[in-house]
């Protein structure tokens, strides 16, 4: 029979802030990051319910639903700053919320230090790439793309 070993929490260094230093197994402090992350999950969660339910309702439930989704549909939405801001907020909040959730799961299930380190490096790199890509796409979108003076087929162009 092996004795149960209680490990130090993997989510950063706990014990900072409101916990007396004598209960802090790691000695040093890392601020209130974990508490702020916990709070962020709840605040962003409430906002995401509104943003994503609205996104699904407008894109899938009204009008032609999924059949209506094509390049022209996206162009029509992003012609309105309201939907640009909506989609930008959804992108950032969902990616931060999702990345923090996956970070928690990595901390819980990956037991080796090196495994956790590399999984989180991959996670942060992927999340940063997706957030930057999505942000650039929303702000540099061109409804009427022209390559070498020729309009690309399928574009959302006003009649010449």
């Amino acid at each position: 029979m092996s004795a149960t070993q209680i490990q130090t929490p993997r989510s950063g260094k706990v014990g900072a802030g409101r916990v007396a230093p004598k209960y802090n197994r790691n000695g040093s402090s890392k601020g209130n990051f974990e508490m702020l992350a916990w709070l962020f999950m709840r605040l962003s969660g409430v906002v995401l319910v509104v943003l994503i339910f609205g996104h699904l309702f407008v894109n899938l439930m009204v009008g032609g639903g999924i059949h209506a989704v094509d390049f022209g549909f996206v162009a029509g939405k992003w012609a309105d700053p309201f939907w640009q801001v909506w989609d930008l907020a959804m992108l950032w909040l969902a990616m931060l919320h999702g990345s923090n959730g996956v970070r928690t799961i990595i901390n819980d299930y990956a037991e080796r230090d090196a495994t956790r380190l590399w999984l989180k490096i991959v996670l942060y790199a992927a999340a940063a790439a997706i957030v930057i890509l999505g942000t650039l796409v929303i702000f540099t979108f061109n409804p009427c793309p022209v390559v070498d003076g020729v309009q690309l087929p399928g574009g959302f162009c006003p009649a010449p």
Partner: protein
Amino acid sequence: MWSWVGHRVTGVVIFFFLLVHVLDTSLVRVSPEAYNAVIGSYKNPLMALGETGLVAAIVFHAFNGLRIIAVDFWKKGAKYQRQMLWTVLALWVIVMVGFSIRHLSLALGGH
């Protein structure tokens, strides 16, 4: 405990879909044809079922997430957590029946 498992599983599923969803939407920046080709390839009965499953995961995660917030911040949250779980499941069934009827009739029906 099972609501906790469900919350984790649906969260991971939604996260990986989100990565793919940003990538496919980014094709609008490549060309209208590229975007329409990929979105067009999604418009088949199998993907319609997949979309319904994805929305089922999102709706559960959303309602159960609001329940977690109530447990954490509402004075009587912990006391009523079980009743709130049944409320989550009931709302989930109602929303999914409505969504499935509308989405599947649009996606599978004639057009």
